[in-house]
């Protein structure tokens, strides 16, 4: 197996998988450096050469994927393997290129998101405002319809008005996403979500929207609000939705 090419390909496709590497070995049949890829569906590429050991490696890899936990395990006497959990670069789509979008895109890029900013106003969605980001100046619905989404796509909806928020969400919630967050006062987000419910977006999907957006750190300025949103994105990427919800609940409110 050409590991570099295969890993690169899986990451580019936005897949999450476990790369198992033998790091210490007293068994000459399983040399250090040997690699096995285990995908989330349990399929394996590479392998140790022993069916029995492979099934153990598969189980450990699936556990690592489930828990998003990397580390080493002794897979047989004198043989230690490192279970690495790799994910394609998380993509952040920011709908709305206003004043919060600038620090948001900047911080998100710094913590490793590939950022796309979308707005229908070309003076706001301008590359000079968002260095290092993909910037799209286009009608929201038109742009979102053709945009590729994956389980590594994070979406933050911060347009200038609730009509645009609603139209963005109506498109985004039909797609596969890692996270969807909506900015606004409690009243405004409630209004938008109820409207989408009436338009036929399933209730379970609406409940997945983080609204109002961001971890409760007492944010006030655009930069602070951006920080609270990025903190939430990192929580979801490193942990899961449950942890994101728990942190909000613990502080009893948003931002």
């Amino acid at each position, binding site marked *: 197996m050409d*590991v*570099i090419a295969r890993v690169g390909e899986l*990451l580019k496709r936005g897949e999450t998988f476990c790369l198992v590497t033998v790091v*210490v070995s007293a068994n000459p049949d399983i040399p*250090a450096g040997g690699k096995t890829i285990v995908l989330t569906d349990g399929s394996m590429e590479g392998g140790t050469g022993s069916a029995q050991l492979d099934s153990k490696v598969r189980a450990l890899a699936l556990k690592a994927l489930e828990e998003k936990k990397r580390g*080493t395990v002794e897979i047989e006497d004198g043989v230690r393997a490192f279970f690495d959990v790799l*994910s394609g670069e998380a993509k952040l789509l920011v709908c709305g290129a206003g004043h919060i979008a600038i620090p948001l895109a900047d911080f998100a890029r710094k913590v490793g998101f590939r950022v796309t900013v979308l707005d229908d106003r070309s003076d706001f969605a301008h590359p000079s405002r968002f260095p290092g980001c993909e910037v799209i100046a286009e009608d929201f619905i038109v742009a979102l319809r053709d945009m590729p989404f994956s389980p590594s796509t994070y979406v933050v909806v911060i347009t200038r008005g609730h009509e645009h928020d609603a139209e963005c969400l109506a498109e985004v919630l039909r797609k596969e996403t890692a996270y969807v967050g909506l900015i606004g006062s409690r009243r405004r987000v409630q209004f938008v979500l109820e409207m989408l419910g009436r338009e036929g977006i399933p209730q379970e999907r609406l409940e997945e929207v983080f609204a109002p957006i961001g971890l409760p750190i007492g944010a006030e300025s655009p930069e602070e609000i951006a920080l609270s949103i990025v903190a939430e994105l990192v929580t979801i990427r490193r942990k899961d939705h449950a942890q994101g919800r728990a942190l909000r609940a613990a502080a009893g409110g948003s931002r």
Partner: protein
Amino acid sequence: MTDQEIFQKCAELRDRDIPFCLATIAEAVGSTPREIGAKMIICADGSMHGSVGGGCGENQVRSAALRCILTTKKPEFLEIDLTDDLGTRGGDVCGGKMWIFVEPL
């Protein structure tokens, strides 16, 4: 650097026939400068991409990588001790220990 950027860099170095090693933090206890899974590429000329912890332990990793590239061609599993109390011996003071796998790819 993200994992994706690290593997892109590996592919690029291989295409250009530049020998290199990949170093990955495989295990860590206590306080360490970077998390398990953090990666760094060390090239034959000593240049590095990514990071396994800033100054902390990187010299040891670099030496192991160059040893591997230039002579042994074999991977190494390094234990890096960052528990030098006050750094009085010029050591690292992050407080923990980490194990780094250095391999030629």
